[in-house]
């Protein structure tokens, strides 16, 4: 089959290429990562240390570390409390559009799927923002699919400006942009940027991103750096765990964040841990499967490697899992979530990207956090 596909490692026209060696560093590290070589002793040694090195991080992500999950959790809990105290930040995502030009084989929004597409008009957006603000939230994450035609930078910028009237903290989870575009959205009121590499394995990445600008691996990889160059305050990293070898992907995401922090020491770093859920009756069969135990291992490894980084726990996870990881590894959670386009007040204008497992309201999540002896935090950022 000749698809006349683009070379996934070459930039398309209009994509800004920055001078950076972080991608090469990460890819070299991952190429050398053989998690089967680590032993009990490596894990024990790593866990006895105050500051975990890259080698130690490799060890605690390995299968040899699974029997030590409890020890990792205890150490992670201490680190989380040391750096974040009792605080747990709460926020909600708002999908403003779901048009998409990418064909990513794993995604519900992909351009081949016959789903309801839509985007919020200014009037609809205002209603949604008001409804969310009325729950008391001060932090919002604005999301779109990747369509410069339907949801271009100007449209997103306008949405951010409207959101800035109601929210003190605005993050964006949209397609990767050039530095100047990030600078523009920063000027509109956004300060935090999430871009997930999905998989760091370039071959797998090519296989699952068949068409669209997302196919271009290095442009996506360098998005966080361009965002910081554009003046953004914080950047989030993550791999879609289970899409490929999740240990290698988590290792790569950790190193990606680590090298960015070294180069941009002021940047606020955070992780998300979305996963492809294993199919029922398929347990233990596929080494890529990420069950809750494996997911927790990844979260704990992130925490121990970068104890100062934020970790967000997704609504894709069950409430019992979410409730137990806050204060231990996670520092931020969403509440009152709708993953269709709009849906907080107006009827949804487009279908959902995925199914959520935790439908609790802001009030319910707030109460749960208090009941666990932790402190719900609505705002942790001041824009000056």
């Amino acid at each position, binding site marked *: 089959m000749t698809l006349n596909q683009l070379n996934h490692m070459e930039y398309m026209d209009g994509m800004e290429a920055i001078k950076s060696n972080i991608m090469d560093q990460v890819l070299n590290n991952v190429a050398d990562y053989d998690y089967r070589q680590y032993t009990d002793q490596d894990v024990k040694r790593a866990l006895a240390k105050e500051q975990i090195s890259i080698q130690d991080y490799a060890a605690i992500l390995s299968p040899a570390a699974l029997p030590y999950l409890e020890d990792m959790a205890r150490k992670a809990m201490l680190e989380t*409390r*040391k*750096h*974040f*105290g*009792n*605080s747990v930040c709460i926020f909600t995502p708002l999908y403003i559009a779901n048009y998409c030009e990418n064909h990513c084989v794993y995604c519900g929004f992909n351009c081949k799927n016959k789903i309801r597409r839509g985007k919020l008009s200014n009037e609809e957006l205002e209603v949604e923002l008001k409804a969310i603000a009325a729950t*008391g939230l*001060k932090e919002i994450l604005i999301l779109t699919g990747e369509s410069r035609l339907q949801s271009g930078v100007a449209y997103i910028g306008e949405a951010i400006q409207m959101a800035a009237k109601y929210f003190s903290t605005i993050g964006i989870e949209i397609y990767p942009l050039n530095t100047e575009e990030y600078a523009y959205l920063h000027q509109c009121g956004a300060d935090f940027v999430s871009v997930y590499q999905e998989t760091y394995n370039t071959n797998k990445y090519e296989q699952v991103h068949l068409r669209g600008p997302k196919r271009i691996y290095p442009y996506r990889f360098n998005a966080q750096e361009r965002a910081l160059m554009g003046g953004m305050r914080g950047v989030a990293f993550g791999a879609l765990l289970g899409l490929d070898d999740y240990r290698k992907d988590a290792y790569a995401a950790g190193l990606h964040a680590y090298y960015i*922090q070294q180069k941009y*020491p*002021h*940047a*606020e*770093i955070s992780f998300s841990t979305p996963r492809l859920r294993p199919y029922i009756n398929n347990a233990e069969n596929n080494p890529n499967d990420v069950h809750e135990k494996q997911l927790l291992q990844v979260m704990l490894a992130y925490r121990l490697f970068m104890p*100062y980084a934020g970790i967000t726990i997704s609504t894709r996870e069950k409430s019992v899992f979410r409730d137990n990881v806050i204060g231990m590894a996670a520092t931020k959670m969403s509440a009152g979530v709708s993953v269709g386009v709009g849906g907080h007040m107006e009827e949804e204008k487009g279908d959902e990207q995925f199914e959520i497992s935790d439908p609790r309201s802001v009030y319910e999540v*707030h109460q749960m956090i*208090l009941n666990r*002896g*932790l*402190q*719900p*935090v*609505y*705002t*942790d*950022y*001041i824009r*000056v």
Partner: protein
Amino acid sequence: MSDKLIIGGHEFQSRFILGSGKFSLEIVKAVVENGGAEIVTLALRRANLGGEENILDYIPKGITLLPNTSGARNAEEAVRIARLAREMKCGNFVKVEVIHDSKYLLPDNYETMKATEILAKEGFIVMPYMYPDLNVARSLVNAGASAVMPLAAPIGSNKGLCTKDFIQILVDEIDLPIIVDAGIGRPSQACEAMEMGVDAIMCNTAIATANNVALMSKAFKQAIEAGRTAYLAGPGRVLNNKAEASSPLTGFLED
């Protein structure tokens, strides 16, 4: 005996300043009461004034607020946050905190100095959080600071007086209240700092992460008072453990 802590012309009985950033808000009151704190810090970025979980709803009346500029990456941002705090009726005190390292959260002394100078001129009672460096401390005095707040160890580390010798130099040389901020993990460490002649202790994580926060707050209060009393009493002579020469070294002057 009158032994008051005086900062910017304001008198305080207590030498325990409570940092609030890591607490569950519902226990702040108990911690303030048990620790006898008269000053409580307030991170403006966290405050959510008028909204859910607003810290001002939890701080008892009569407490002096010490808004900090956490979140500022440079002097300009710190100045803007301080002005915002004043507009929001959080008073005239400000703890200048300028950090642009998300990993260690170490203060940037140079930017801190610049912000201190601007804010002092605007009439703020400026308490800069700094890495203990004598030259910087002297510049902060000249810039109009009302106290100097050197760190004992990285924020949240509970490691104690890692910078002890340098804090001692500030105590000896700087004619402003020296308030140890960050790193104090145990009451015994707070006590030791106070014995050295430090004027007050700011504490947050060590209490917030204790099993019984109210009790730990009380322990800090007692430790800080004990250390202060010991300092005022003067160390016992056994601590000056230099051997006495059998014949006076200066005896030759009499010959």
